[in-house]
């Protein structure tokens, strides 16, 4: 009875509450994928830039365009001496490093 009256008195708050619970439920269910998600852009950019530059031997300028995605990155460093590429994006940082002539590049764990 009390609950019914709350629903009647606050229909929009009730709806928002239900949506919030549903959202929290979804976040809980997808927590592993959601936690990993922000890593995509920096990992992708570091790995594919490294391979573009040091496996395919394309010019640096071309490789910057090649890895560009709709999400922004920041803090790009390419240490040509050690062939290590580090990229920051969405608050995460990831590196890829050139391993050898046959093995190409690999993301650092």
């Amino acid at each position, binding site marked *: 009875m009390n609950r019914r009256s709350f629903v009647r008195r606050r229909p929009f708050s009730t709806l928002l509450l239900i949506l919030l619970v549903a959202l929290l439920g979804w976040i809980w269910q997808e927590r592993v994928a959601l936690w990993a998600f922000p890593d995509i852009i920096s990992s*992708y950019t570091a790995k594919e830039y490294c391979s573009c530059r040091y496996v*395919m031997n394309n010019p640096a300028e071309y490789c910057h*365009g090649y890895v560009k995605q709709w999400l922004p990155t920041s803090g790009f460093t390419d240490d040509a001496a050690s062939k290590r590429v580090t990229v920051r994006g969405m608050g995460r940082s990831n590196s890829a490093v050139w391993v050898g*002539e046959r*093995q*190409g590049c*690999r993301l650092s764990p």
Partner: protein
Amino acid sequence: MFKGLSLVFMLLLSLSAHAEYWPAEQWPTGPTVTGPALQALETYAFPPRDEATRKGLRTDALLVIRDGQLIYEHYAGPTTADTPHLTWSISKSLMATVLGVAYGEGLFKLTDPVLKFYPPLEKHPTMTMADLLHWASGLDWQEDYEYAPLKSSVVAMLYTRGHPDMAAFTADHGEYAKPGQAFRYSSGDSNLLSAALKNIVGPTRYPDYPWTALFEPLGIRHAVWESDSTGTFVASSYAYLTARDLARIGLLMARDGRWGERQLLPKDWVAFNREPFARYQANQDDAVPGGHWWLNRAVEGAAKPWPAAPDDTFAALGHWGQAMYVIPSESLVIVRYGDDRDGSYRHNDLLKLALKAFAAKGQP
């Protein structure tokens, strides 16, 4: 009289020996093709290129082998004849070819459970090598590169949770169908094959196996194949070859696994590669899956995927427009590398124009 006859015989012998061309250190070159048909092909494949918007067709390399001779090659963008270009999912068909050599060594059978070679698959004991080659593991895999990044198994495998050990990441997926019952294209399946190969040939031979088994016998000198942190080759995505070198694999396949005098791949292996997967249903994918190669075959309820090309056409295909087409009936191998970001490239259009320019001229 006798001497004259034997001379004629010798001449015939040498003629027939020359009738079949093979690449040595370089490809032998054949007669140059010119004319309006070639122009039409080039207009299609090499439109003006915009590196800023990356819109439209962006062919990096186009190379044509006919009867074992290089008759056409053209490069664009930063790619040259010396560029080991990323092949993306062409790597899957390359792994199948490497496995073919191990199969020829008698190291495994298609009906072998993968579990025999890859223990982490203990929850999937009935999955066979053939099931993986058909992309029919039954694992609940989501293959979507760019449009569903949160749910994409392949993005997670290559860039986030899965990259240190891609096969283990794949094996950790649940089952949506019994193995061998349904086709679902999966990069995970290809990496399970790669992990299985490690125990098939043994961990000592494995790191060099693609080179010793396949690349070196074919004279491929500049192949790169990236691996994950456990040393397993990323068979789904990360092999790099020059267009000229990839075409060597195409010629091997066009000639039923034979390289010169040597039957490198057993004929029944190539036949398996080229046999449509029986459980594939029309329009599940852009082409018909065989044993880790793509086939131009009509299946019940659908015409062949590339109407302009002969039925015996088969291909290795990869993301962003990578393709190698093998057309045995026309003695053609066509390699096309690209960087297409908007999906405007059409296999059938390229095949139609290429066949018009190059087919049925050097036939014996």
